[in-house]
């Protein structure tokens, strides 16, 4: 019995390991942490798998991504002190480089660097909707399921996140 369950899991969930790892990379901003998260989330996913009745490929993806996201949350709670320290650094970082003196850095930032930095500076709840929408192409309904918030909230978070990214982008392209 358990081996057929494993086969179903390998067919429905494991194909989305890249998506899971991508989301974890963006949420943790660290390659090693992302691996630990995905490892833990996959085992959790397997343990709850009997309760999962979806059969569409997209459902398996949204389901695994929801578990990855929750695992990151639990992991942040566990490492709260560490997380606080990071947020503090982030503020210093963003104020020092991007917001106050955009021309201060001697080397001009490329578009791609500017965007990645801007993504890293987004609050986690903005970053996750951007990754789920722009990289994974999830529908609003799917994002709402993954993030556990109403569709209206997904919409407003996406809109606000994009506005911030546009600001970061137009500084480098000088098209504001």
């Amino acid at each position, binding site marked *: 019995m358990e081996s057929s369950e494993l086969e179903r899991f390998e067919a429905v969930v494991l194909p989305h390991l890249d998506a899971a790892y991508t989301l974890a990379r963006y949420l943790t901003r660290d390659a090693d942490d992302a*691996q630990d998260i995905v490892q833990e989330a996959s085992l959790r996913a397997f343990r709850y798998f009997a*309760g999962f009745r979806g059969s569409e490929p997209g459902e398996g993806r949204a389901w695994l991504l929801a578990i990855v996201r929750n695992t990151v949350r639990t992991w942040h709670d566990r490492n709260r002190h560490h997380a606080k320290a990071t947020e503090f650094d982030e503020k210093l970082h963003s104020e020092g480089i991007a917001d106050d003196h955009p021309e201060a850095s001697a080397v001009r930032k490329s578009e791609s660097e500017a965007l990645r930095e801007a993504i890293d500076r987004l609050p986690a709840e903005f970053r996750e909707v951007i990754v789920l929408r722009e*990289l994974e192409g999830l529908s609003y309904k799917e994002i709402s399921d993954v993030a*556990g918030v*109403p569709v209206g909230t997904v919409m407003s978070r996406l809109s606000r996140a994009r506005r911030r990214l546009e600001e970061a982008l137009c500084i480098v392209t000088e098209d504001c």
Partner: protein
Amino acid sequence: MTHPVIVAQLDAYLDGELAAPDAGELEAHLRVCPECARLEQRRRTLGAALREHLPRYEAPDTLRARVRAGLRKETTPVRAVRRGPMAWRALSVAASLAVVAVGSWQLALRRAQGEALADQVVASHLRSLMAGHLADVPSSDQHTVKPWFNGKLDFSPPVYDFAGRAFPLLGGRLDYLGGQPVAALVYGRRQHVINVFLWPTGRGRSAGSGDFTRQGYHVLHWTTPEYTYWVASDLGLAELREFTGLLQRGDSAAR
């Protein structure tokens, strides 16, 4: 259409999430309003830049190997019998041992699920205690809290007010446990907060009942034919059991 409406709907439009009549109206406005058309252009430029510059990562082979090894460990019952030449009697013993092994493996799996869920319950409880996270609908009125869940969940959780028994209702919120949205009801006792998480029984794999302790928090879990309950609090166990007793009696009276 006014500008604020356009700004609010532009993302949904570009994401293909706007209903056709609204999309038509918005397109008509974009044709005549240069300001909104510029907003649209900026969004499209951003979208193209994100797709061009944001990497999607591939799960490293080491990670794939770790996941597979973990799954193997989850699915391999402890091997009770060494393989090798055996008499038929030994074989029949082996067969009955295998049944026992599978049975206890399922038991262990259920317990592991309970433990994992208890971790999540405490994490959610702790998160709710952070400023501004306790309730999406802060209200001591059960007739305000219960309807608030309409349209947010596909079930309507039973909400009671035990203010008369010194467990006042503080509010409700949406939470996420075991990979699904669940109802969280918040009750108080003096300075203590009690979180009640519930969802329809039969979803997820959390039948049964159990008590857990995590970092000084008590976690109580039980299942009724309708709902699966998880309760977390730093309240003393005796008082917490008084509360869960009220909840269970309220539930059986409602049936």
